């Protein structure tokens, strides 16, 4: 047991700044990918709700494909595959784009479920008392949707944060890749990978607690 903790005492000072840097990178990647996923997801949801059949069909095809294809395949396609077709992204952009494309479907689903939780009668009543459709959406529907959607959105963010670890496999130097480099440097894979796991936990857990707190019952 002593020998297990020994390396943390000995190298902790060297590891901490490196891991903190990598945590920052992971957080940056996850946040930017999530912001993009919100935009894509909102678009997708608008497509699903539109009355143009072609848009609806596109949205449903998109959701099916994204639900059936692993993120890793998407990342490899974007980073290693697209240059063959003349499109080149740097690793960070490819990871951000891949995460956003995959999580857009989940975001759209959360929006859809959130909208369904608001009874139609509310919009009808608002329109009847003279709200314009835009006012009705902005003042009546949206504030309630945000409340309902917040908790599942945070859950989605935690999933995305965890999946951002796959970016290490397309050479983004986030937590896992940094951990791999450290593991080869120090020959202490167990201690280092546990430290890496804890770093994720430190970011993810507060969000998980928050999402449970905000869950609308």
């Amino acid at each position, binding site marked *: 047991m002593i020998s297990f903790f020994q390396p943390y005492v000995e190298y902790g000072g060297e590891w901490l700044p490196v891991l903190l840097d990598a945590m920052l990178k992971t957080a940056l990647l996850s946040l930017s990918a999530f912001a993009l996923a919100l935009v894509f997801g909102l678009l997708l949801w608008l497509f699903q709700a539109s009355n143009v059949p072609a848009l609806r069909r596109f949205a449903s095809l998109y959701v099916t*494909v994204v639900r*059936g294809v*692993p*993120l890793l395949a998407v990342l490899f396609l974007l980073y290693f595959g697209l240059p063959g077709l003349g499109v080149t992204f740097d690793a960070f952009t490819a990871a951000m784009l891949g995460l956003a494309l995959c999580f857009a479907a989940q975001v759209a689903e959360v929006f859809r479920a959130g909208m369904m939780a608001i009874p139609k009668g509310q919009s009808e009543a608002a329109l009847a008392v003279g709200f314009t459709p835009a006012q009705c959406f902005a003042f009546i529907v949206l504030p309630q949707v945000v409340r309902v959607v917040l908790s599942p959105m945070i859950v989605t963010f935690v999933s995305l944060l965890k999946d951002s670890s796959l970016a290490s496999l397309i050479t983004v130097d986030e937590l*896992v890749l940094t*951990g791999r480099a450290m593991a080869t440097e120090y020959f202490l894979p167990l201690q280092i*990978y546990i430290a890496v796991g804890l770093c994720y*936990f430190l970011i993810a857990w507060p969000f*998980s607690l928050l999402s449970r707190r905000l869950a609308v019952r």
Partner: protein
Amino acid sequence: MNSLDPFFLILQGLLQGAGITAVVTLSALALGLALGFALSLVRQFSRSKVLHGLVDVYVEFFRNIPALSHLFILYFGLASLGFRLSSMGAAILGLGLIGAAVTCDIFRSGFKSLSPGQTEAAFAAGFTPMQTIFTILTPQAMRIALPSLGNFAVQLLKDTSVVSAIAAPEIMFYARSMVTSSFQTTLIYATAAGLYLVMSLPLMQAVRMLEIRYGRVK
């Protein structure tokens, strides 16, 4: 030479890994369901605060740390202590342990959605606690949990692609090794993506049918 030839060669290569993908998915699914169900019973029906705490710690630990991180700990980390797991063993164990945390939550929400009146009625009718749990509550909780469990299975099938990182020879592993020996990167990864899609479509269809049958979608 037919222009489709390279595609079929690639598909043939990737299919070598499809069996392992299926084996890892099914084994991890079995482990995840069994352990997750046991954990949910402990969390839901035991009276021990300590056991509750342990299950909670387990679930939080596995749900807030990425699969890749767990796999590296199991595969590279434990080896440094002398516990050498095969890549397949680590893959199944890792995904199964994570899966148990997920299914524990799914089963629990199934149990929680049942009215407490059912337990009271069963006790009043002379059922023992064990009989109540297994013959009254579990079958109903299962029904409620089924669609979510189906979604979990779809997710698990896709997540097996991650175990290529610890060299388990599944689809993505073959894709990556084919890429190093040919220049058809785009075609190889697109075919791999298509193969996963083809494998998960029947599962997704089954989930839809479960959802319709058990009334989530009208």
